[in-house]
């Protein structure tokens, strides 16, 4: 049985909708390394290649030996909460609106000392904690001290919920509900407690197995939406855009053509029309509406999710035109992310490897199941990250891309010779 949808308190229409404020977000170039790791959900500290010291905050040189040969390395976050306090007064508008706020000083195992937000489940100091990197509403890395042994749930903490985009009690638009991925995402969001889910359906005359039962979920309302049609996107934004808290863009056109294949140009245009221009059409109509409601109470608009592809990082020649369209979408999503963050709305990109669907039929396993991908969407919303690489293939590609992007390009082109 489907879980009964959550119902939030309705808003008072005579009151002005609060405008979003942002936590301080100026960072040095060196400090952005912390954000880059947090975007993937990782805690990394600067480590000196010469003396091996880990340091915080990030600097241009090693504070032990003054070497400039610094790199970013993972840290398990284990440490000791030395002391804590509650912030009760602040000049920054964002903190003023969120007071009181618990902060503390943590000494990480290995020596670095830092200021962190303190999860309500720990304390009093001194005690053992684990430090996690999270992204705040401005998209910058912040450090959070959490219980050392348990899996933390930021959403349950009234302050740390700010670091998440929890789908619980939120109203969500899933742009395409016909694909296996789209259907799995809708079910996962319903199970995660979404109050309402609009599911986009293009070309209503093409009936697809599963969409009828999807409509039986009490949260689900089917709406006409074809991302290749500006008129359709504009109409839907006009009808429901001011209510959408989370937009999950599952619209995807995946064909398996090499660039020289007959018909590849026309097919490539279709892929671009869905994967790139579709995202652009959605962004033009829905992004301003999401930004306008980014501080609209506890269930404000919070997030935009794109299901991209690991092929966006490096072209997979057997799916050459598809890879290019996803790379274009990735680039566009960066512009959209910059725009959304001005209001504190997070953009999350997922980069799955081959998915167990009809278009990746000829790819060798391991393949990501649509349900696993949907679970990754929910995890990303509940957590505090913006780039998600679900599954073994995606993780492997990411590691190789980070290690040597050129070598990965060559290796992928070998497969098509």
């Amino acid at each position, binding site marked *: 049985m489907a879980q009964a949808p959550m119902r939030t308190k309705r808003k008072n229409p005579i009151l002005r909708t609060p405008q979003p404020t942002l936590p301080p977000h100026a960072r040095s170039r060196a400090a952005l390394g912390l954000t880059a790791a947090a975007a993937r959900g990782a805690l990394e500290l600067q480590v000196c290649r010469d003396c091996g010291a880990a340091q915080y905050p990030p600097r241009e040189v090693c504070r032990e030996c003054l070497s400039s040969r610094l790199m970013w390395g993972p840290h398990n976050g284990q440490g000791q909460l030395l002391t804590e306090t509650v912030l009760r007064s602040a000049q920054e508008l964002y903190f003023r609106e969120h007071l009181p706020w618990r902060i503390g000083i943590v000494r990480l195992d290995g020596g670095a000392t830092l200021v962190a937000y303190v999860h309500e489940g720990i304390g009093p100091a001194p005690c053992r904690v684990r430090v996690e990197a999270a992204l705040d509403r401005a998209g910058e890395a912040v450090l959070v001290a959490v219980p050392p042994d348990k899996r933390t749930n930021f959403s349950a903490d009234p302050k740390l919920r700010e670091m998440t985009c929890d789908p619980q009690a939120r109203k969500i638009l899933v742009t395409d509900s016909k694909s296996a991925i789209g259907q799995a995402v809708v079910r996962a969001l319903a199970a995660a407690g979404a109050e309402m889910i609009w599911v986009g359906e293009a070309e*209503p005359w093409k009936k697809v197995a599963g969409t009828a039962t999807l409509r039986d979920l009490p949260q689900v309302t089917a709406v006409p939406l074809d991302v290749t049609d500006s008129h359709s996107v504009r109409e839907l934004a006009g009808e429901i855009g001011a209510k959408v808290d989370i937009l999950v863009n599952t619209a995807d056109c995946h064909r398996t053509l090499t660039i020289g294949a007959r018909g590849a140009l026309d097919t490539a245009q279709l892929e671009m029309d869905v994967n790139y221009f579709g995202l652009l059409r959605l962004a033009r109509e829905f992004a301003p509406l999401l930004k306008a409601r980014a501080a609209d109470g506890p269930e404000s608009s919070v997030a935009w999710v794109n299901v991209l592809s690991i092929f966006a990082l490096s072209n997979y020649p057997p799916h050459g035109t598809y890879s290019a369209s996803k790379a274009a979408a990735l680039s566009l999503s960066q512009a959209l992310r910059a725009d959304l963050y001005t209001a504190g709305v997070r953009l999350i990109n997922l980069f799955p490897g081959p998915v167990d669907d009809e278009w990746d039929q000829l790819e060798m396993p391991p393949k990501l199941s649509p349900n696993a991908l949907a679970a990754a969407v929910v995890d990303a919303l509940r957590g505090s990250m913006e780039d998600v690489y679900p599954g073994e293939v995606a993780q492997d590609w990411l590691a190789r891309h980070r290690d040597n992007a050129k070598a990965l390009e060559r290796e992928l082109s070998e497969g098509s010779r």
Partner: protein
Amino acid sequence: MKAVAKKRKTKVTPKRTNKKAHRTIAKTTARAATDHLREWLQMLAASPRLRLVDLTQTLSPDFPPIVLPPEMGQSRPFRMEQISRYDENGPAWYWNNVSFGEHTGTHFDAPIHWISGRDLPNNSVDALPVEHFIAPACVVDCSAEARADADFLLTVEHIQAWEQRHGRIAAGSWVLMRTDWSKRSDPVAYQNLDDTGQHTPGPDPACVRFLVTARNVLGFGTETIGTDAGQAAHFKPPYPCHYYMHGAGKYGLQCLCNLDLLPPTGALIVAAPLKILQGSGSPLRVFGLVPTRRRG
């Protein structure tokens, strides 16, 4: 070496259509068309009143295109992007860029559309004889049959029964199959797809052969997406209306509407496709000129 041998082989393979015979037919049809046109225009001029009937569906993004398996090439639906609307992109003017496949909305099929008509002379929309763009229409009412059976097939017997009542179909006429299918305003009902494909009415193979060879019609028109029936992929030959009509240099009209406002005979149809270089068809405005008697 291999490529040369292959090329030669293609050259000596006999073509399935007789070009010379076709050219003769085309010429006589064209002459008959202009001769008859004067006659029909005189009849219209003599008629006390004239009614004009728009037989065209509105081009809109929601109008469904033909459905093919997704791995095949796809005909693009109608799309429109605004260039300016009295704004900074064009202060005093409003206009749009539109895009669509040649076979979108109410559209015309030229012989080059089908493999059987690919080697005919003047087989693309830019080369068609302009005298073919005005022609009389014979409207065969199949609305009751199509209402009872979405897979209804028009047969030679139906055509003969129609001729019993309305006279022999004149050479150079459009034969329009009225099914009232265009009244299905819901695109889902209009497409009428299930997991065995589309279910829409159309002509059976023998009927098409009869209209082409025994009646020498100008073309065949329907209210559905395609001059062929929804299940025509399984006919022998597949898509007989496309195969035989275009193989003989005949035309197709699809997604027509308001056929119920035309008389069985006597109306003239204006159907002039866009002049697209090597075009296989085009959306177009189709309308009928209907002579009517004075009321009372």
